[in-house]
Structures are given as structure tokens and as C-alpha cells.
């Protein structure tokens, strides 16, 4: 592009700017023809020098801002990724917690069944043993009593003992039945409470 040549008057007016410490900036400086005016040449060169320094500074600052922007964008992306990962981990943890609770409930139910089974077996044994003892004692006492009747021996003591024995056995039988019913009732109450929980 052809350079612009200023008249003497225009050049003097431009140089007035120098006195007021005003500088020309930008690419306009590069199209001023200063070949025949030393003072204008000095002023334009001074302006070019300052303009170049300003541009260098601005370029550095802009680059720093660009870098900071890039870092911010990277940080934002990383943050978003971390949040997504955290969300996934939280969901996994919740799933694992639910599975663990389910397993715990299953184990508790199994344990309850096992305890009930053992208790039932124990009750069965107690009932069987009690019945054997009751029936055995009853049979022996009755046998002895009938034996004295048949043989005509003195049986007054045995008779009263037999009657006493049967009343005691009857009372004990009711007591055993009562105990068993009580245990059963307690078990059913416990089950209802657990289910409510």
C-alpha cells in the first residue's frame, strides 16, 4: 500500500499532539510517509515503539487469559466428571446397601426358623418325656393298687396314695400343657412384633 505524505501544515498539526503527550496508535502509523520530515519521523518512530510494546503486553495478557480460560474449562470438565462418578458410586453404594439389608433380613428369617425348629423339637421332647413319666407313674401306681385289690392285701395307704398320685399327675399335666401354651403364645407375639418392625 502507498504511504500517506502529509503537507507541512498537517505535519506541524500532528506534531502538536506530541506537545500534549498524545500518541498515534495502530496500523495508521505504518502508512505515514516521514521521509522528508525528521521531527515527524522521530515522533512516528517513538509512537511505533510504544505501540509495539503495548501490543506485546496485550498479547501476553491475552495469552494468560486464554490459558486461564483453558484451565477453567478443563477444571469444569474434570469437576463435572467427578460429580458424575460420585453420583454413580452413590447409586452403587445404595444398591449394595439394599442388597445387604435384604441378605440380613433373609438371614434373620432363617435364624428365626432355626430357633423355632429347635424350640419345637425341645417342646416335643419335654412333652414326650413328661407323658412317659406321667403314664409310667400312673401305670405303676395303678398296677400296684390293682395288685393289692386282687390279692386282698391291705391297700388303704396305696388307695389314698393312688388318688393323691393321680390328682398330682393331673395337676402337673395341666401345668405342662399351660407352660407349652405359654411358650407358643410368646413365640407368636415375638413374630408379630418382628413383622411390624
Amino acid at each position, binding site marked *: 500500500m502507498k504511504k500517506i505524505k502529509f503537507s507541512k501544515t498537517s505535519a506541524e498539526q500532528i506534531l502538536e499532539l506530541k506537545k500534549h503527550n498524545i500518541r498515534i496508535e495502530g*496500523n495508521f502509523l505504518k502508512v505515514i510517509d516521514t521521509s522528508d520530515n525528521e521531527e515527524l519521523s522521530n515522533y512516528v518512530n517513538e509512537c511505533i515503539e510504544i505501540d509495539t510494546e503495548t501490543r506485546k503486553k496485550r498479547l501476553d495478557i491475552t495469552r494468560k487469559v*486464554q490459558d486461564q*480460560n483453558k484451565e477453567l474449562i478443563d477444571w469444569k470438565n474434570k469437576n463435572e466428571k467427578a460429580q458424575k462418578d460420585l453420583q454413580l458410586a452413590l447409586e452403587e453404594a445404595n444398591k449394595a446397601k439394599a442388597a445387604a439389608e435384604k441378605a440380613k433380613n433373609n438371614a434373620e428369617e432363617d435364624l428365626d426358623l432355626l430357633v423355632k425348629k429347635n424350640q419345637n423339637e425341645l417342646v416335643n421332647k419335654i412333652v414326650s418325656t413328661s407323658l412317659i413319666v406321667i403314664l409310667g407313674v400312673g401305670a405303676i401306681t395303678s398296677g400296684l393298687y390293682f395288685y393289692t385289690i386282687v390279692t386282698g392285701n391291705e391297700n388303704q395307704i396305696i388307695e389314698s396314695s393312688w388318688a393323691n398320685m393321680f390328682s398330682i399327675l393331673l395337676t402337673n399335666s395341666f401345668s405342662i400343657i399351660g407352660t407349652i401354651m405359654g411358650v407358643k403364645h410368646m413365640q407368636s407375639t415375638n413374630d408379630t412384633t418382628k413383622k411390624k418392625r
Partner: protein
Amino acid sequence: MMIDSILLVDDEDLFHLVFEDACSLLDITLSLKAMSSADEAEKYFKNIVDNNLIKPDCIFVDLNIIGSSFDGIELCRRINFVHGDGVVIGIISSSNDETEQAKAMKAGAQFWIIKSDEIEPRLEDFRKDFDGYKDRTAPFKVYK
């Protein structure tokens, strides 16, 4: 030598400043116009052609122009094959994807400048090759 006029199409406003200062410090051009969207650039170029105005000597186009309805390669294709010819046009991008470079070449791009921290050396090299691009004798080149 100086390039009479340059058009830069890039969505990043900060890069406009970097490019302007780099061009000024290297005395690459005295006339730089920067635009932020491919649509705006196409409209501008269409207006130049329709009204027979002076075209820019060289166009630097970003690859992914965010906020535009088409990308930089498509803009190269439209300027080269729809709105006129004789303009030196190329891509300026941080990407070094060879597939994209091949597509850009097919769309009429003559060069590919990698946008990175120090762009001045690449612009300096580009300026040396500019005459070749202008008379269409220089092959497609990637400035790394």
C-alpha cells in the same frame, strides 16, 4: 511482504485479539477483520460478491465455529465453490486431525495452521508461502 487484507472467522473473541496483535507485530497485514460466526462470514462474503466489492486477500477459518450452523470446512467449500474464487483460504485450528485436514483440502483449503501458544512462527512461515498460495502453485501445507 504484507498481505493487503485478512478476514479471520473464529468464535473465540480472545483469539481475535491474539491474532490481531500477532499480525501487527509481524507486519503481516494492515487490514484485519474478525468475525465470530460462519453464517456472518458467508453473508459478508456474499455481499462482497453481489456488490462487486474488494475481496479480502486471505481468509483464516476456525474448524469448529461454535454458534454457527456449519463448520469451518463447509465455509471454505462455500467460499471456494459458491461465492467466488481467487481468495487464499485455510483453516486455523488447535486440532491436528489428518481426516479433517483431508476434508479441508477437498473443500478448497490451501493451508492448515495449528493454533497453539506461539502462533507467530507459524504466521511468519505462512507469510513466506503466501505468494505461492495466491498464484495457486503452493501445495496444501500444515503449519505445526
